[in-house]
Every structure is written in structure tokens, then in C-alpha cells.
């Protein structure tokens, strides 16, 4: 059977080629396997003037921990290189001695509502208000690859009000 089948194939090379080649071409067109190795890189400019106004570098959504907290935390950079944190659509509960900190998102202290040991963080200032848009200047040397979380934190009782992990904008 195999012998006669291969014999048939050799005797009808024209038919085999006439069917096989279009099938291969169709399969290539459908799957374009070469694209597995070929990347197409583009680099379009943003649809706005990027050098005249502050640009967001990082952003993340705030989630409540011990107290309901919501809104967006974004780090902006001004054209002259200064960086600041901006909270938008922000709301948390009002409380005593509440501060805004940058911390490390992998800090085990932040998995609980109450911080037991010292929190490795960068102090940005007392929370200006428990609702509304607000800005906090960042110290010049903060490494945002390391301190990649924003924490709304009650210093007096070591309570984490809310937390946002920052991702590149």
C-alpha cells in the first residue's frame, strides 16, 4: 500500500506540486510563522507637547487597608526635573497625624493594617486633606524603582489607611 502510494506520488508530480504549493502558500499566509522571529518596532511621539508641562512617570490606584481609601496616586516630573506626587479623585477617612509616605511595595509591614516594626519609607509630609486633589514634593534623590508604593499612614497609631503600588506610566 505504501509502495503503491509513493509510486502514485512519483507518477503524478504535477498534481502533487499543483495542490501542495498553494496549500503551503495558504498556510504561510494564514500563520505568518516568520513573525515569531521578526519584531516590528515603532516609536511615535506623544500626541501632546511633552516638554512644556509636567509629565506622569508612575501611577497606581489607592486601595483601602484599615480605612476605606480610594483614588489615584501619580508621580509627575516637571520640565526642570523636579518630581512630585499628585493624588486625584482622592478620599480617605480623616484622622490624627496622618502622613503621606513612599514605601516599598514588597515591605512585609504593608501586608497588615498595623505596622509592627519600622516602616522603610520616605516621608512626603502631613496629609493636606482627606479629600480632593493634592500635590506633595518629592526629595531630589528618591529612587522610585525602590520606593514604588504610596502609603497613607497614621504615624501616631502606626495604621496603614491606604496603599497604592506604582507602575510606569
Amino acid at each position, binding site marked *: 500500500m505504501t509502495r503503491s502510494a509513493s509510486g502514485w506520488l512519483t507518477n503524478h508530480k504535477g498534481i502533487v506540486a499543483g495542490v501542495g504549493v498553494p496549500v503551503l502558500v495558504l498556510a504561510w499566509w494564514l500563520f505568518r510563522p516568520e513573525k515569531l522571529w521578526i519584531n516590528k518596532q*515603532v516609536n*511615535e511621539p506623544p*500626541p501632546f507637547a511633552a516638554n512644556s*508641562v*509636567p509629565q506622569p512617570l508612575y501611577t497606581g490606584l489607592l486601595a483601602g487597608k484599615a480605612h476605606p481609601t480610594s483614588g489615584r496616586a501619580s508621580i509627575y516630573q516637571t520640565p526642570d526635573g523636579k518630581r512630585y506626587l*499628585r493624588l486625584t479623585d482622592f478620599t480617605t477617612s*480623616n484622622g490624627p497625624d496622618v502622613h503621606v509616605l513612599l514605601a516599598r511595595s514588597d515591605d512585609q509591614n504593608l501586608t497588615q493594617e498595623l505596622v509592627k516594626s519600622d516602616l522603610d519609607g520616605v516621608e512626603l509630609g502631613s496629609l493636606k*486633606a482627606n479629600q480632593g486633589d*493634592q500635590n506633595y514634593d518629592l526629595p531630589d534623590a528618591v529612587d522610585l524603582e525602590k520606593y514604588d508604593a504610596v502609603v497613607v499612614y497614621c504615624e501616631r497609631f502606626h495604621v496603614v489607611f491606604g496603599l497604592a503600588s506604582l507602575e510606569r506610566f
Partner: protein
Amino acid sequence: MVREIKFAVGVAALVVAFGLGSSVYAQGNTKQEDNAKALETGTFHGKVHQTSGRATIYQEQDGRLVLRLTHFKTSNGPDVHVILIAAKDADDDANFLKSDVERVELDKLKGNEGDQNYDIPAGTDLSKFRTVSIYCERFNANFGAAPLQKF
């Protein structure tokens, strides 16, 4: 009557003293008035075809909407398009033809890596189309999806 007033004043004083129910409201400004405004943003997830990066929708001063992809990376493939879908998010292996999800076509994917912009048709309701998808039209395969949230 006087006693009631005294009582009310007392309660009010207590409320003020303990800060109950009082809120402080701040309004810092962005200094971004004369520029395109970021309305929505989200990050891509996609495991079947590794997809990552950020999708942001900007509104230009004249009102036009533009989708911009940044830090973007997906696998190259045949007939890949950028679409908006009327859903909060999409599964990594979603088939929008089967699930009959309403969608808005933006364009063919310009490149599988890098920053890129896509015009959004006028009149697209962003409260309905909440997810950006990188979508292979030929095989109805979702390469990656970015659920959008207000920026």
C-alpha cells in the same frame, strides 16, 4: 428652649472637637490646561501571547480622542488589530466573536513593540468601551487586554 440650644451647642462643640464627619478638602492644580488631557489609563495583561505595557486615552484640545500605547510589547502575528471592547476586562484567551462582544476597530497594530498612537472614532462612548484589546482578527484571538480606569 434655652436648655435645648445649650445642648445643641454642646453637641456641635463635641463634633468639632473630635472631628467627626468633618472632611478637609484640597484642590491642588495640575498646570496642564493647555495640553492633551489623559482621561483613562490601564496596563495590559496577556499570557497566551505575552503582552505588556500601558494604554492611555488622551483628549486633545479640540476634543479628539487618541489612544496611546507606551512601554508596549506583544507577540508579532498576522492581521493583529487594536480594538476597544464593551467590557470591563477580557480573559487572556477570550474569543470576542463567540462571546459576541461589541467592539470599535481603531486600526491595524502598527508595531508589536514601542510607543504608538491610534485615533478613536468621534462619538465613541468611553463609559461603555472600558477595555483595550490587541486582537488577532484572523483567528479571533485576544493577544492582550488593558482594562481602563480614570486617570
